[in-house]
């Protein structure tokens, strides 16, 4: 191995330490028997997890977040499928501009989106509620879903659709028998990305929240109180474990799906 490779490895190692530093601290302090989140460590305990179990407000926030995330994931994916199919398969007028416009939320700061939605909703006289948060989340998640699904649709051999038609099948059935199974990995990825983005999204939820908080909004509220911090660490650890498990699961299904269809595994959702 030449010299440069060695230097690289050191850099990457240091980088990984930097990257993982905050994440590692979560379980460290979650099990730390101290009501202050700082060093030195005081001993092992699981009581912070028990505190979580008994906090009703947390459960409400979790339920809200889950509800929002699931709805967002499903609707964003549907929008994404429609848009990705349209843009990869058909050429409609002003396609580039329209697609550029739909993908715009991806590069806009969330605060701009939060602010604009807030303005509209108030001007129109509606109330802020979980529904308004869902709308906001769908807006920002759809571009990501389109990105993932476009790649899936583009990998679809066009002649497969034609073969199905040639063999006598209707367009509707062609979609469900041929296209849908083959873009399934993309759909799964899309659902998961949208779900994860929505679950963790704070700014829009903060701006558009009515009286019912989402999980991040709840966390934000709790950060001000030092005595709540250890239990927040426990919560963070749980969320981390949950996210990783979801991703591992998703990747497992993705690989299985690829195996079935024999497409080469290029690694990663993106």
């Amino acid at each position, binding site marked *: 191995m030449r010299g440069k490779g060695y230097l690289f490895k050191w*850099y990457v190692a240091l980088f990984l330490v930097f990257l993982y530093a905050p*994440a590692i601290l979560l379980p460290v302090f979650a099990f730390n028997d101290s009501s202050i989140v700082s060093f030195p460590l005081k001993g092992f305990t699981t009581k912070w997890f028990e505190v979580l179990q008994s906090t009703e407000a947390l459960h409400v926030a979790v339920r809200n977040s889950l509800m929002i995330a699931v709805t967002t994931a499903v609707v964003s994916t549907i929008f994404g499928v429609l848009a990705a199919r349209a843009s990869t398969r058909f050429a409609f007028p002003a396609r580039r501009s329209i697609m550029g416009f739909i993908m715009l939320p991806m590069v806009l700061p969330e*605060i701009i989106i939060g602010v*604009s939605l807030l*303005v509209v909703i108030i001007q129109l006289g509606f109330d802020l509620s979980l529904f308004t948060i869902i709308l906001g989340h769908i807006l920002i998640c759809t571009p990501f879903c389109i990105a993932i699904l476009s790649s899936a649709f583009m990998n679809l051999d066009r002649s497969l659709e034609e073969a199905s038609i040639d063999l006598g099948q209707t367009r509707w059935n062609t979609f469900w028998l041929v296209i849908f199974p083959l873009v399934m990995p993309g759909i799964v990825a899309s659902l998961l990305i949208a779900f994860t983005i929505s679950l*963790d999204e704070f700014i829009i939820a903060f701006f558009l929240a009515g009286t019912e908080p989402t999980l991040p909004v709840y966390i934000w509220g709790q950060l001000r109180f030092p005595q709540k911090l250890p239990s927040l660490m426990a919560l963070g650890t749980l969320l981390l474990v949950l996210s990783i498990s979801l991703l591992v699961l998703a990747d497992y299904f993705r690989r299985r799906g690829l195996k079935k269809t024999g497409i080469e595994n290029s690694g990663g959702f993106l």
Partner: protein
Amino acid sequence: MALISPTLVFTLLMLAVPLIMVLALSFWTQNYLTLDRSFSLENYKTAWSEPMYQYLMARSLKISIFVTALTVLLAYPVAYFISFHVTPKRKAIWIFLITIPFWTSYLMRIFLWKVILGYNGVVNGSLMGLGLIEQPLSFILYNQNAVVLTLAHSWVPFAILPIFVALERVDRSLIEAAEDLGDNRLRRFLRVTLPLSMPGVIAATIIVFIPTIGDYVTPRLVGGPNGLMISNMIELQFKKANNAPLGAALAISAMVIVTCVTLVFVWMNRKFMRGPK
């Protein structure tokens, strides 16, 4: 085609209309509890002339540029490493590893940086424990440096991905051809790999720069009084200060500035790419 319409209509309603309304709002004025809908440039005058806002905007730009530069600089070697020094089978796992920290709650991650950089935090604890300092360092938290560091940490996986994708697309035989023609490692990198991966770098830059201006949580938690950014002010106007039109004007101004900077950057890059080939 009919397929695109649901998504399009939704985006039109949820993005175009609100943005237009914000634009409209920025031209109205708020008198305590009533909204005066007559056209006025008052808000923009305030936004652009009042030193506090100018200062905040300048600081936000400065921070964003630093964050973007730092993030891309940190990200590129990692992306290069994964693309060139990792066996293809393992690449997916590495990418996975890079993105895991991202799956912790955004808020918690930033809060944890507070823990790391704080008075009684990890950095100070270890430095004191190793005997390198006597007193805990207080300059590493509650200022702009902390904001830059925290934001860079958050965004670096986002920067690694497009650069990695672009590097993967670089035809390896081009690099071999350069070697065959006499270039050493550094020259091969500068003359072949780097220019060909530029689209990925530009994508990474835009992905990091634009949302960073709008970041609100990080300055609030780790920025201290000197680390606040323009988005905190925008939020303030909308919530506590009850001056939504001013907030709108600030938001639009910020967006305009960001777009201009981005366009200048992209344009400069085009010129650079067309230059010495």
